[in-house]
Structures are given as C-alpha cells and as structure tokens.
C-alpha cells in the first residue's frame, strides 16, 4: 500500500465532504406521498390498525344487524366471550414480544383448571389454597418452558410444541378424563366460580372474569411501558445480542416472561371455570391458536420487540365481534373461520410492510 496516495486521496474526498452541507443529521419533512405518511403513522402507532378494523367491524355489523348487535347485553356477551382468549393473549403477547411463541398456553390452562378443581373439590382443601396452588402450578409450567428455552437453547416453538403435548397428557392422566361437575364446585370451592358471576354496569352485565381481564391488561401495560423490566422485554425481543451487550441479563428476562405467562394461563383457567361452570379436561382445545390469532391481529410482530399489549385486547375483540356479528347475521359458522383466517393473513402482511423502515 502506498502511503502518500492513500493519505492524499483520503484528504481530498473528505475535503469535498466537508464542503457539502454539514447537516447530515437533519430531518427535512418534504411533501411525502400518502403511502409513506400512512406507513409512518402505522409504524408509530401499531395499535391503530386493529383499532380501525374493530371500529369498522362494529359500524358494519351495527348497520347490517342493527339493535340486536348494539344491545348492551350482546356487547357484554362479546366481552365475556373474549375473556379467556384475552387473558391467554396477555401471556402470548409477552412471549411473542421476546420473539418466541407459546403453543402450550391452552394446555397449561386446562391442566391448571383441573388442578384447581381437584384440589378444591376432591381433596377438600381450602378453596383459596386450591386456587393458589393452581396459579403456582401455572407459573411452574411456564418456568419449565423458560428453562428449556434458556438453559438448553431450544427454540420456543419446539419447546412449547413438546410441553403442549406433555401438559395435555398430564391433564388427561391427572383428571382421569373425568369432568368435575359445576354443582360439586359450587358446594366445595365456590371461589372458582367467582369469575363467572356478574354485575350490572350501564345496563350491561359484566362478569368479574372480564373485569379482571381488563385490570390485568392495565397492569401488564404498566409493567411493559413504565418499568425497566418492560423495556428489557422489548429490547430482548428486538435484538438479544444488543440487549446483552447493553448489560441486560436476557436469559433472566426470558425466564421471567415464561413464568409470568404461565401464571396468566392459570388465571385464564380460573376464568374458564367461571365461564363453563364445570372443570373439563377437554376444554380449551383450540385456545393456544386462538391466543396467537388475537396477538397477531393486534399488530404484534412475530419477530419480536414490536407490539402493544392493548393491541392484543383489540385483536381479541376483533375476532369476538366478527364471530358474533356473523353469527347474528345468520351466516354459516364456517365463514367465521374463513374471515378470521383472512384477518390473520392481512394482519401479518401489514406487519411485514410496517416493519420496513
């Protein structure tokens, strides 16, 4: 390498650069095409898309169906119907924000509902203790997932595909495939039905379960946006290597996320018992996929680090409104599934577009 030519060449091109305007970091807002502005808007407010879809769905169904749809009773019914998926959606959102996925949420929910039921009804344990033990079992199940993901470095998809089957099998074994009847629960552990009781607000009936869901969303929103833990969850999902270099113990964050997710699955189990009355080892078979649907329609990126917890609530409501509205319109059930499928694909397509900077 010839030293002088390198040096002079460098000096020359840098002189040229210095002569150019110095404002390399300026942000000029020129008139941009509508699409660019739209892109910037969605990039900034990822919850806007599901909110708009929800609003449009409500408008369309209320003009098509009218009062029957807008009746407070029907609207509160929709909220009741999305309660379980909503709570599981919280768990799923946390996992997906870390760029993972949890296929076992439904299985954890069913397993913990059986644990709550058997501990409360068959062992004659104090109902509060039965509930607490169920919640603990959920957190433990989540911890097992988290350990497999962080300690053995297995992909979350595979880990939870495995534990989905394992937890579901344990659930069948532990329950003996027997349903615990509603009357037995009422007699021995009525607290498990608390989530199904309702109060009247503004002419609509809300179950404690659905109110609890809203409170949980608020708590998780606070944790994600106003605590260091929340920032670390986003950073871990966004770029784990960068997060580690910034001093974040990403494995601990991941384990904590799986534990919290498992706990929320058990809370969903409580809501499930309140909703269906009995404890059935066959309940909630599709719940894991439904929770992913809610998260995806809510605008969370499956690649992690991007999304909002309220997006998931909106996503769950969008699914609930579409299913309810189509059912009231007298459309065949298969078109509900068709529509939900369409929404998923549109939501993921939109996310791909939004993520482009």
């Amino acid at each position, binding site marked *: *390498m*010839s*030293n002088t030519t*390198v*040096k002079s060449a*460098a*000096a020359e*091109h*840098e002189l040229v*650069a*210095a002569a*150019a305007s*110095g*404002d*390399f*970091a*300026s*942000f000029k807002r020129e008139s941009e095409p509508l699409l660019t502005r739209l892109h910037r808007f969605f*990039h900034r407010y990822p919850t806007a898309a599901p909110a708009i879809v929800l609003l449009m769905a409500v408008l369309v169904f209320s003009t098509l169906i009218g009062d029957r749809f807008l009746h407070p009773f029907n609207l509160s019914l929709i909220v009741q119907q999305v309660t379980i998926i909503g709570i599981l959606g919280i768990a799923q959102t946390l996992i997906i924000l870390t760029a993972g996925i949890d296929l076992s949420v439904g299985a954890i929910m069913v397993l913990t509902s059986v644990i709550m039921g058997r501990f409360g009804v068959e062992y004659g344990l104090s109902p509060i203790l039965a509930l607490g033990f169920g919640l603990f079992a959920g957190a433990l199940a989540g911890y097992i997932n988290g350990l497999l993901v962080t300690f053995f470095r297995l992909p979350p998809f595979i880990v939870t595909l495995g534990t989905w089957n394992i937890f579901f099998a344990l659930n069948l074994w532990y329950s003996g495939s027997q349903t615990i009847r509603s009357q037995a629960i009422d007699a021995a552990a009525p607290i498990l039905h608390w989530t199904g009781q309702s109060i009247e607000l503004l002419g609509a009936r809300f179950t404690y379960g659905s109110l609890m869901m809203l409170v949980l969303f608020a708590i998780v929103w*606070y944790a994600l946006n*106003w*605590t*260091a*833990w929340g*920032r*670390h969850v*986003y*950073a871990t999902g*966004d*770029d784990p*290597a*960068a*997060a580690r*270099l*910034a*001093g*974040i113990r990403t494995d601990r964050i991941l384990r904590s996320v799986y534990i919290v997710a498992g706990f929320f699955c058990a809370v969903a189990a409580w809501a499930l018992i309140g909703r269906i009355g009995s404890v059935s080892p066959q309940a909630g078979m599709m719940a894991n996929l439904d929770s992913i649907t809610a998260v995806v329609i809510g605008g969370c990126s499956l690649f992690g*680090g*991007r999304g909002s917890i309220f997006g998931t609530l909106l996503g769950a409501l969008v699914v609930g409104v579409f299913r309810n509205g189509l059912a009231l319109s007298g459309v065949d059930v298969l078109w509900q599934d068709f529509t939900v499928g369409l929404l998923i694909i549109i939501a993921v397509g939109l996310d791909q577009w939004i993520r482009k*900077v």
Partner: protein
Amino acid sequence: MTTENQKLVLKATQLVKRYGHVTAIDGADFELREGEILAVIGDNGAGKSSLIKALSGALVPDAGEILLDGAPVQFKSPMDARKAGIETVYQNLAVAPSLNIADNLYLGREKLKPGILGKVFKMLDRKAMHEEAKAKLAELGLLTIQNIHQAVETLSGGQRQGVAVARSAAFAKHVVIMDEPTAALGVKESRRVLNLIRDVRDRGLSVVLISHNMPHVFEVADRIHIHRLGKRVAVIKPDTHSMSDAVAIMTGAMDPNEHPAGAFAA
C-alpha cells in the same frame, strides 16, 4: 498531548486466552494513558478483538493482570467493566432498534421515580431520563436529532452511531472503547463520528479506538498500539511512523525494531 510519564488509566500485562488449541491472546501487554486516544490496529485474526473483549469484560482471560488506575481488577461480565467506568461501543451497535433514543441511552441503567412510585411500583422516571438524554446529546453536538422519542431504527447509520457513542461517553467515568466506529459509515458520517471521538477525549476521558481505517487512525490517534499474532509488537505515534510503516509492522513485513524510531516509539 501525551507525555512519557503520564498516568496510566488502564494497563494489562501478559494477558493469555486460549480456545482449545488456538491461542487468541498470547502474552499481550496494553497501556492506555489518561486523556488520550489510543488506536489498536492489527490484521484480521491478530487477536485485537479478544484483547478488547478482555478489557471490556466480555471475555475472562486465562492469565495475566488488568490494572485500572493502578488497582487490579477482574471483570466477569461487561456489567462489571461498566460499573468500573469502562464503556464500550460495539461494532454491531448495542442498541435496540424499536426503542426510542432516550430509552436506548438508558437501556440497562434505567432511572426510577423517587419515592414510593419508584420503590414499590418500580416506575420509570421517563421525564428525567428524556431531559438528561437531551442534555447529553446536546453536549456532544448531536441535538440535530430533534425528537428524542424517535425509534432508533428510523435514524441513519451515523446517527445511530452517534447515539451509541453518546451513550458510552455520557456514562463512562474512565475509558471509552470503540470497536470500528466508522466501519459502516459514509464519508460525512465518519467525519462526524471522528469529531465526536475527539470531543470525548477532550472531555478528559481515555479512548481506545479499534479500526481498520488507517487514515482515520492516523488522523485522530495520539498513539497507536500494533497487535500481531496475539501480542503487542509496537506502540508508535502518527509522527514517528508512516501509514505504510504501520501496515508493514502489522502484517509482519517489517520488524518494528528495525525502524529508526524503534518498536516502542511512544
């Protein structure tokens, strides 16, 4: 400018790191003086990354000693080094793209609200963090980044590098280590970052600059540490050696002791 008897901020003696049969650091020495920019250059595979990792806590050496301000230190993780006042700007920029600038500046060392909100509810003091982030960017002449709430991914490469440098400069008490800070940047942006590196030095911090870009190294470095085959073979100054001398020593084409200024000219 540096003089011979200046205080050593960071010193390492006879560092060794082996990976199986491969010896990444083979009895390397290292000396960083107070308030200087020390460039570390070396061919690919010379082991300069391993050396830097050992100094920044990302790697624990098998043998050797590291002294910070004359006291022996043992870094088990990058956090240990950070706590001791050594900040590192990594080549791949340790920033979270979807978080905003202020969040990124405070990533891993968030401030909590005073009182019960912070203690019990662990509430972040966003306002204070944003205000301070703004002040810190302004100090480094980076206030052209107007919106501190902007996601880092919407910034250009130079601006992101600016955020990463600002973060380390803002929190470093002793040493800032920069790994290839101008590697992926355009000409203008490189210039800006080089000025930033000088600013950091002028604020009294010591800077370790790892770079392949000889013109950049010769422009900003006070001294140049040349690494070859896992150890330090020479320390030169931009005015004692030419760029081609440096490249020759680095690649083994020249024995540093045969240069008229000697292997340890600085």
